[in-house]
């Protein structure tokens, strides 16, 4: 094997310029794919992290039918106290669940005594909420962050705060209609301004769960949604299946399921963007395959054509076809390996450079997002595997042709 390796290296060095050009082409392809995977992957991970860790959680449980009418924030589709207790019991028995947060979602009128506007609110238990969506704190762009909020306080969405010139410490009034149709108002002190992010609930204000119960005059415990944080994103599908199975088995008196479970993917439109990124990555990989396939095949066809006489000599001397085939396949393999290794090194340097440069960008209404590209070992191994496999496959046809060559015809070739 070593002799074939050495021989292949010599042959690649024989046509240095061609070897260099082919390697450069493969290198460019590898760099393009790795950078795309790295940047898009980091963007995707950042966005998903932001969505799940500061807003949605990994999974959510609602009463059946709630999600279909979530735009109107229907209070009559909240989970009742006994139902909440059942869900809580199941969640606490599931090892994958790290934390969960009970929320009441409501719509209200928001007034600063001179202007009034409508507002969507999440009423939460601050301790539960911080455990479930720990990066929610980072979205408080003005005001006190510690403890999230107290009873009687409100975190106002950025857009409303700007539009109505709301400041920290201002007193505002929320007026809400409960499910029975009675209207109630309650004053709140503005504790902070909450940054808006893309996706459902991304521009909602925040109040304490107890305040919502007072405002809506809820006597028994009622919850609109339960947001769940898992011990790892990788556990999501398994945990979803388990919860759907357990919660799906709880029926109402008509024999219909009482609850519905959703992953963040179902809840956030960003999942479609993430899927598009994956699709684009797939097509970029296909382009890489095409680049490697065409360039290696071209080089190896030329190599065989130019060395017909040499192939004839090797065959005449007694080299078996398999060894001739191995020699040319080894050349293709080495071209793939050279191109890939150089490509990986260049990509890692560029990625490190981008992290050092701390490049920021805007996405929708979110400004100054920091681009922090990283590349997983898994991606590097996958791309290397694809390139090297295609390099070997591309050299197989020319190598096969060389191995099957008639020695006499080859020896006559000038």
């Amino acid at each position, binding site marked *: 094997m070593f002799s074939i390796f050495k021989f292949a290296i*010599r042959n690649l060095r024989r046509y240095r310029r061609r070897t260099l050009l082919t390697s450069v082409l493969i290198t460019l392809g590898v760099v393009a794919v790795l950078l795309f995977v790295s940047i898009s992957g980091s963007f995707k991970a950042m966005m998903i992290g932001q969505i799940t860790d500061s807003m949605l959680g990994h999974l959510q449980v609602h009463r059946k039918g709630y999600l279909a009418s979530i735009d109107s924030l229907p209070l009559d589709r909240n989970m009742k106290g006994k139902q909440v207790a059942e869900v809580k019991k199941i969640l606490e028995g599931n090892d994958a669940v790290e934390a969960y947060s009970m929320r009441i979602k409501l719509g209200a009128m928001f007034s600063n005594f001179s202007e009034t506007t409508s507002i969507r609110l999440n009423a939460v238990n601050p301790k539960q909420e911080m455990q479930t969506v720990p990066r929610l704190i980072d979205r408080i762009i003005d005001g006190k962050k510690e403890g999230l909020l107290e009873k009687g306080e409100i975190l106002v969405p950025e857009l409303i705060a700007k539009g109505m010139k709301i400041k920290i410490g201002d007193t505002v009034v929320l007026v809400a209609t409960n499910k029975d149709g009675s209207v109630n108002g309650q004053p709140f002190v503005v504790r902070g301004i909450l940054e808006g992010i893309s996706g459902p609930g991304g521009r909602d204000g925040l109040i304490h769960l107890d305040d919502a119960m007072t405002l809506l005059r809820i006597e028994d415990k009622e919850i609109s949604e339960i947001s769940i944080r898992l011990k790892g994103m990788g556990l999501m599908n398994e945990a979803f299946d388990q919860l759907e199975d357990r919660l799906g088995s709880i029926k109402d008196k008509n024999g219909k399921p009482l609850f519905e479970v959703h992953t963040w993917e179902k809840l956030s439109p960003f999942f479609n963007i993430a899927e598009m990124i994956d699709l684009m990555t797939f097509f970029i990989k296909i382009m890489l395959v095409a680049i490697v396939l065409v360039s290696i095949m071209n080089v190896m066809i030329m190599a065989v054509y130019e060395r017909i006489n040499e192939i004839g000599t090797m065959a*005449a001397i*007694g*080299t078996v076809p398999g060894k001739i085939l191995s020699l040319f396949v080894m050349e293709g393999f080495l071209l793939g390996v050279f191109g890939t290794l150089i490509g990986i090194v260049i990509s890692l340097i560029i990625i490190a450079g981008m992290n050092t440069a701390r490049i920021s960008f805007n996405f929708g209404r979110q400004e100054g997002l920091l681009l922090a590209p990283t590349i997983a070992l898994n991606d590097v191994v996958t791309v290397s595997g694809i390139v090297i496999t295609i390099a070997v496959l591309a050299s197989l046809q020319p190598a096969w042709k060389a191995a099957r060559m008639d020695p*006499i015809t080859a020896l006559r070739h000038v």
Partner: protein
Amino acid sequence: MSLVRAKALEKTYIAGEITVRAIRGVDFVVERASFVSFVGPSGSGKSTLLNMIGCLDFPTGGFLEVAGQDVTRLRSKESARFRGEHIGFIFQDFNLISVLTVFENVEYPLLMVQNWPKQRRQKRVRELLKSVEMADQANKYPSQISGGQKQRVAVARALVTNAELVLADEPTANLDSKTSNRIIELMKDMRDEFGTTFIFSTHDPKVMKNAETVFTLEDGRWKG
């Protein structure tokens, strides 16, 4: 004792509607350690005959035995193995592998064909290079040596595997007369030293007279 035996050997090429009888039922025997020349004009069938003896081509009729093996119907892989074990080749254009040094060219059959262990292989290559007086050129590439030196390397490569038979197709055609004589002398010396049988085809009258046995071909048949 015979090394090559042929009986009613035939080779016919068919290209579309054209049939060419390159070898027409020849019989011959080549003894071991002999120095044999096939002569004849271009197209007489010399190279075809050499190719069949060298298992590069196969007869369409008759019988051919080389080194005790019926080579009439060998498969591609079997014939490659047979060539690697029993036959050495010397070509008109030397056919050294340009990316390998002189040493590596001679080493090639031992490494890529016969898989000799490193120490034994290198010892054998050094012996052969010394025999053909190319030991001091061992690290040079073919492009750095003369035509005569290339042919010396080719002789060493043909003999390095202890081949019983060396086939040389016009081995002196690309050499001047002085170098040609040296190569023929070298081949004879090698025959004497290693007991190898040499069969070569040639047009060159000076080379012919050095042969101990001369077979003259004309239109695929023995002449006279």
